Structure formats: structure tokens, C-alpha cells
């Protein structure tokens, strides 16, 4: 985070930056002007811009216009442009560069504040949670889950347990605003007998510093987290149901050349593995009403990092939970999925109307499936899709995987059903 008081946006030479930052043959010079990027970009048309226009304006040396357009805050850096581009040109890289060149005081306040909060305490929470807040919240919920009955009397949520196999991170939203939502996740770990721990430092998942375009604070954030995992000697950094938090560490380790003595992985892949291994014997028998579900592929987990095998796992888990007949995919989906418009800091950027305009494409995609619920392992997707539903009167609900897993296993507590509708509010209690 830049602490200087600069107020003028630095002008970037986008054309040469593209040459420096993008692979040969996939730089802006290779653009065919075909517009596949723009046709499939939900940010097309916002602020008079789209990905192809961004490239062309760079090639036309319109550096001032590109350095100052607010469009870079509506692009969620989802990289769908790169995915569909016949030349694999990645527009998001220079969007990140442009974000970084804005003076801090002109950047969207919400993103900047979240990043500043992350840098304030060693927990790296964007919601400003301090170590003791986190530990207290965890301990309170542990006590309350144990009180749910004998089944969970020995349930634990260890913190700073040296040598645990899994280092599990935690999105700040749960400990800060809905701590009871941590319960289902821990029940799953308990069910499969996972050897896991939280950490009192570097525990938070979210990383808004990455969205400010400030590489240094992105790096600082990831260094703190990598150090925390290395220190505890965990084998796997298990990322919670959250998209960008996986990408930011997975990519950050490579980008900044950090030494990580562990494998970053996604919780959903372990759900899939545990189901396949019979350790998490979920089924769809509870869905007697034929409630329909769709899934939102988080860009950060699928297109931007783990690819279609991740999309396969998401679907495998979803189908196991809700039944094949009750699963309806969106079109397009998997690596070609549209970003919901909650990523890249858009949710925090305060540009509500633009965010709704962006999200309309996702909303239409969801309502076309006629699904009653959207399952998504990403907090930003979750919030944005919920908000889109409210704004455009969608009538669907958005749920975490952990909720349905526990529902299917018959271990979902009464207070863990915040995201379920009346149809499922009492099921299995």
C-alpha cells in the first residue's frame, strides 16, 4: 500500500507494459480484433469500455485515457477474455497494473480500507478482526456446537496446532458476522477425522490488497500467510469455500517466488475426495421435493487456477448432494463461466449500479436454469448472487456446500440454516 500523498494518476505506457508482462505471442500485438473477449465480458459497455477496446486503445497509445478510466474497477480480472481469446491475451494483467497506478485516495475506498485492515494485524483479516477476537469467536462456537449433543461432544477447532496435516484458513465473514456458520465445516472435519488446525496469525482468507493493484501489499499479505503455514509445519494449506483467497496465495507464491513448504488446495477437492473414499457418505435422499440446484463456478478457483478438473469436482459434489435429476448446469459454465460481478473487489468498491449491470448476465443465466438454489464455494460469488437476487427479484437462494453436506448427513444444527429457505428449514431436525 502506497502511503505517499500523490493525487495524480501515473500514466502507464500500456503498449510496452503489455510486451513486458505478457508472454510472447499473447501480447496485445497479437490481438485479432475478433471481439470474442468483449462478447463474453460482462463488463463490456460499462464506462464505454470493453476488453478489445482496452487492447486497441493501448495499441493506439491512449495511455492517459486508459490510466484514468474507472472501467478497471468494474473489470473483475476474471480472465474470461484470456480463456476465449484465440491468442490467449490476458487483459486482466494490465488492469491490475492500471489499478496500482491510481493514487490511493482515488481508488475505491472499500477496497483500500479492506487492504489497510488486513495490513494492521497479524491475522490479516480484512474485517479488522484481531487475534483474540478470532480465538474467542472460535471457542464460543466450539462450545455451542458441543452443546448440540453427544455426537459433537469431542468436536474441536484447534488453533496453532504444530504439525497438523491441514492448515485451514477462514474467511473473516463467519467469525465477524455469522460465527455459527463455522459449525458445519468443523462437523465435516470431525466426521472424516481430519487432522487440521487454524492459526492465530495469517488465518484470514480474503486478500483485498491484490485488488488494489498494489503488488507489494499483495506480496506482504501472502508472505505472512506462507510464513504462518511454514511455521506450523502443515502439509496442506486448505482453502475454505472462497475463490480469490485460493488464487491470491496459489498465484502469489509463484509470482513473488516464495518458498512454501506445503501444497495449497481447495476444500471442495477434499469434499469430493472424501465422498469418493466413502468417508463422507452423503446422498440426495433428503431431496424428496425435487428441489433444483445449480452451481456457480468461481472464476478464481476454476478458470484462473485449478481448471476444469475443479469444475468436475464441484459438480461431482453437487450431484452427490442434490441428486442428478435436481442438478441443472448454467450455460456457459466451468472454465467458460461468466463472473458473477462480485470479484475483483467490485463488491467492496461501492459502484452498485455498475455492479448490478455487470451481474445482470449472471442473474439471467441463473433464472434460465429455474433453480431454487445456487451452490457456490466462494464468498464473493455468494454475496453478489444473493444481492443480484434481491435487486432483480430472483427468488432463488444461495448456499454453501458445507450446509448441504451437513444437511445430507443429518447433522445440520437448527442455527446453521441461515441460507436455507422454508422448504428446508426444518428438514432432518
Amino acid at each position, binding site marked *: 500500500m502506497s502511503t505517499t500523498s500523490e493525487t495524480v494518476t501515473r500514466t502507464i505506457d500500456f503498449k510496452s507494459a503489455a510486451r513486458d508482462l505478457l508472454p510472447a505471442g499473447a501480447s496485445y500485438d497479437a490481438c485479432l480484433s*475478433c471481439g470474442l473477449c468483449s462478447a463474453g465480458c460482462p463488463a463490456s459497455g460499462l464506462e464505454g469500455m470493453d476488453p478489445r477496446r482496452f487492447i486497441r486503445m493501448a495499441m*493506439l497509445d491512449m495511455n492517459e485515457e486508459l490510466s484514468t478510466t474507472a472501467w478497471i474497477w468494474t473489470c473483475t480480472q476474471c480472465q474470461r477474455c484470456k480463456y476465449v481469446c484465440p491468442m490467449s491475451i490476458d487483459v486482466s494483467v494490465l488492469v491490475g497494473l492500471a489499478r496500482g497506478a491510481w493514487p490511493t485516495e482515488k481508488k475505491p475506498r472499500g477496497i483500500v480500507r479492506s487492504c489497510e485492515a488486513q495490513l494492521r494485524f497479524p491475522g490479516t483479516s480484512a474485517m479488522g478482526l484481531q487475534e483474540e477476537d478470532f480465538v474467542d469467536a472460535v471457542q464460543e462456537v466450539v462450545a455451542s456446537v458441543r452443546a448440540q449433543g453427544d455426537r459433537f461432544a469431542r468436536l474441536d477447532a484447534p488453533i496453532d496446532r504444530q504439525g497438523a496435516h491441514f492448515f485451514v484458513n477462514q474467511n473473516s465473514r463467519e467469525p465477524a458476522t455469522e460465527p455459527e456458520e463455522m459449525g458445519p465445516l468443523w462437523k465435516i472435519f470431525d466426521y472424516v477425522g481430519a487432522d487440521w488446525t487454524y492459526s492465530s496469525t495469517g488465518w484470514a482468507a480474503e486478500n483485498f490488497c491484490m485488488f488494489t493493484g498494489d503488488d507489494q501489499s499483495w506480496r506482504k499479505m501472502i508472505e505472512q500467510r506462507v510464513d504462518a503455514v511454514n511455521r506450523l509445519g502443515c502439509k496442506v494449506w486448505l482453502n475454505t469455500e472462497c475463490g480469490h483467497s485460493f488464487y491470491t496465495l496459489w498465484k502469489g507464491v509463484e509470482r513473488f517466488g516464495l518458498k512454501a513448504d506445503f501444497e495449497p488446495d481447495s476444500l471442495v477437492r477434499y469434499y469430493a475426495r472424501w465422498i469418493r473414499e466413502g468417508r463422507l457418505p452423503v446422498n440426495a435422499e433428503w431431496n424428496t421435493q425435487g428441489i433444483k440446484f445449480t452451481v456457480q463456478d468461481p472464476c478464481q478457483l476454476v478458470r484462473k487456477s485449478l481448471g476444469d478438473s475443479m469444475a468436475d469436482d464441484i459438480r461431482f459434489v453437487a450431484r452427490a448432494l442434490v441428486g442428478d435429476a435436481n442438478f441443472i448446469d448454467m450455460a456457459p459454465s466451468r472454465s467458460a463461466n461468466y463472473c458473477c460481478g462480485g470479484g475483483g473487489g467490485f463488491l467492496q468498491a461501492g459502484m452498485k449500479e455498475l455492479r448490478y449491470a455487470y451481474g445482470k448476465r449472471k442473474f439471467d443465466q441463473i433464472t434460465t436454469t429455474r433453480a431454487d438454489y445456487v451452490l457456490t464455494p466462494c464468498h464473493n460469488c455468494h454475496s453478489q448472487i444473493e444481492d443480484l437476487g434481491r435487486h432483480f427479484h430472483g427468488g432463488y437462494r444461495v448456499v454453501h456446500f458445507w450446509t448441504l453436506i451437513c444437511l445430507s448427513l443429518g447433522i445440520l444444527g437448527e442455527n446453521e440454516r441461515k441460507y436455507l429457505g422454508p422448504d428446508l428449514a426444518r428438514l432432518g431436525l
Partner: protein
Amino acid sequence: MCAQPTRDGPVLETEVLIVGGGVTGTGVMRDLALRGIHCLLIDRRDLNAGASGGNHGLLHSGGRYAATDPDTAAECRREADILKKVAPECIDACGGLFVAVEGDDAEFAARFPDYCDAAGIECAAITPAEARELEPCLSEKVFAAFTVQDATVDPFRITLENVNHARQLTQSIFLAHTALERFIIDGRTIRGAICRDTRTGEAMTVRARQVVNAAGAWAMAVARLAGCSGVNLLYSKGTLIISNARIGRRVINRLRPPGDGDILVPGGTVSLLGTTSQTLQNIEDSHPTVAEVDRLVAEGVAMVPQIAHTRFIRAFSGVRPLLLAAGANADGRKASRGFTLFDHESEGLANFATVAGGKLTTFRLMAEKTGDLVAQRLGNRQPCKTGTAPLPSGDALRWTEPGFAARYWVARRAPRDLILCECEMVPASAIDAIVENAPGAELQMSLNAIAVRSRVGKGSCQGAFCSLRVTSHLYERQVYDSRVGLRNTRDFVAQRFKGVAPVAWGEHLPQLELAEALHCALLGLDQLQDDDAHPASREVPAA
């Protein structure tokens, strides 16, 4: 202006008939209009269809000819200064560098300041390190460098502005695709000319008191139609290639006697690497070749190494009409870049003039001398005003400037003004302005004609997408009907293809493949038949 039709079609009357819609012909037209004289300008194809469109747009400091042709060099310097004052909107005063690289003649480089001095050309020595600081793209092998006052000029815009100004001043007229077939000569006087609209095939008669031949490379042929054999030209084909994006800020010249691939000229948002020189027998045979492109790249790399992996999007050729004095050496590089005004009086004609040779940079002077002669013959005592009168611009005239449309569209913030050409960001409003009011605007204006007046088709896609989008727009506006638009699209992309084929390698090859898939596989434009009563225009613009 129209008298009774004759056997040779309708009769058009004017004071001066000018043949050739290049920068010289249009310069003469404006020069005369500023003296209050009505002109009719005709071109067999369109504005800037010859050398005026097929060049690198360099506004010479004179440095290029300082050593070999000091008179032309000094003339270039004076004219460049005038144009910078009267038409600043057409000019990018980017400055220039002359650089010698390892292997070049060190003595020639050392003498360069003296040559410039003799021609009165400003030139300052800088160190190779300073040169590379000014232009980081320069080779590390540069051992001598000088700054000069080179600039670039948009030859299309200046031509459009010439015609438009003449139209405003005296209702002078420009007719595209109008070929001169023969003169009607009565003793020492040309009474008129029989012309034909190459698009409709219809003949017309032009009656004029004076006739000016400014046909550039075709001036010799036009003079012969008038029975004059004193105009002898050498045709020198020059090929250039256009990069996808601008390389360097300044004009970069190789500090050595003029040769292939020794100049890199910015053209707004792109750069042009030139130029070859090859003597031609047949001026119609002037397509760029792969061998020429290879030579340009191989030479250009010595000055600017990144040229080796630069994406080039187009090659084009122009034909330099060089004056051949009796017994002169038939080498295009060594022939004079000066110009001559022929009054043809010794050849028995009192109202015919030919202006030939010269350079883009000196067109105004050529027009002035021609205008002086024609005005005097007409008894008009008005002096030439082009040396001081600003060249007015207009809504329909500003779309040829690279990057203008994009900046205009972004600044205007009118998202409903649909962008039709995405590469150059040309909006629908620009196409509408051109179709309605650009010089040469007419019913069912061709895509090629629109491209001469805009940046349509000049970006990296080279017409792959904009051809279809502009055509669709014109159908929607009912400018086109039946198959006229489709044939226009076909003619336009065929024209673009000629320039793309010689640079089809590397990053540009997929572009060509995509265009072919769109135009042939999807639309079947290659199967389109020419069976309509009004064949589409076939004007061939320069790049």
C-alpha cells in the same frame, strides 16, 4: 454548369480542368480557388490513388537529400516550414534522427553536418547514448547520430482539405472514377475533354479554358493525349510496410546515402518502414512483393532491432514519378526529386500545363507555380495565397488522422454512437459524416472510397470485421441496396488482401486466416458475381 447534353454525354463547364486527384492536383485546385477560379478536378480512381497515397507521409527536413540534391533539400525545408504554419492539424512535428550504425560509412556520417549546413538545414550532433535515450528502440550499434526537424504529414487529410476548401471558395468540383479519354484540340487550344465515368460507363464532355495535367505517374500518358511528348518520366516503385503499433517517437533515418529500408516514419499510431526503389516499365505493375518486404525488414533491423519481431500488418507500394532529363541516368534513387512545370507552348498548346516530379513535401510550391501560370493565362491577377492562408478543416475531413476517431469517441462519451471499426475505433457518426459530406461523397459510396477518407480497414484486422460492420450500417441507412454493398465489401477486402499477403507471417498470419474464413468460408464473397446493372466501383486507393 451543365450545358445541353451532346453525343459525348452531358457537358460540364469550368474555367480549369485539372487531371489527377493527388496532393498536387488538389493543391492546384485550391491554389486557383483562392484566386477565385472555378475548377473541375477529375481522377480515374479516387483522391490520392497514386503516389500521394503510397508514401510514408514524411515532411522532409531536407536531411535525406542534403548530400545528393541540395536544391531539393533546401526546398523541402522551406516548404515544410510553410505547411507547419498553414496546416498544423495535418502535421506531427515529431522531429527526426539520422543514425549511422556499425558498418556504415563513417566519413559520410562525419560530413553530414556540412551537407546540411550547405542546404541551410538545422542539424545537431548528439551522442549515441543520447540518441538511445531519445529513442530507446535504437540499436546499440549506433555510432553517430544527428537530430533534424523532420515531421510527418497526413497526405489524405491535406488532400481532402484542399478539395473541400476549393469547394467552399468557388464551388469547384471533384469527380472520382472519371477517366480522361481524349482531348478536343482546336489549333493551339484545348477546347475540352471527353471523359468517362468508369463506374457507370457513361461519357461526359468537359469544356474548360485551361487544362492542368497533375496526373503524377500518369502525367506522361496524359501529356501524350494532348500530343505533347516533352514530359518524360522515370517510374520508380517504392514499397513500404506498416507496423501494428508505433515504433519510436521520431522519424529515424539511416545516415548513409539513400537505400532500402533506411527510414522508419511514425504515422500517428503506426510506423512505416521504407523504402525500396525499383525502376518500373509498367506503372500498373506496382504490387509489393515478399522479397521487398524481406529486404526492408533485414535493413531496418540494423537501426531498430525490434523490427525483427514486430508485427507488420500491411505492405504497399507507390510509384514515384521522377523527371528524366535527356541523357540522365536511369536510376530511381539518383534521379532528381525536383519538379518541372511544362507550359507546352513550344509544343503548340497555349492553354495546357503539366506539373510533374517533385515530392509530397513540395506539393504546395508545385501548385503555386502552376497556379501562377494558369492565373496569368486567364488574366487573373490575384496572387498565390497558399503560403499564408490556413487550410480549413471540417467534420468530414478529420477521420484519416490515426488515433483521432478513438480519442474523439472516448472524449464524446456517447456510447450510442456505435463503433463500427474496432481497431481504429471509428464510430458510425464518422461514416455518416463522410458519406454525406466528404469530398467525393456520392450515392452508394464505395467502402474503398470511405477508407480513403477514414481509418476504416487500416488497423490490425485490415478490414476483416469493419468491412462487414460498415457495410451493414450502410444497408441500414439505405445507402446500399440489393447486392451493391456486398460487392463493395468484396472489392474492399480484396484490395486489403493485396497489402496483407506480403506480410503474412508470425502474429499477422492468424489474422489473415481468420479474415479468409469470414469472407470466403462464411460469406462466400469470393463466389459473388458481378451481374448487376450498376457495377460496384473499382477505385483502387493507396494504403
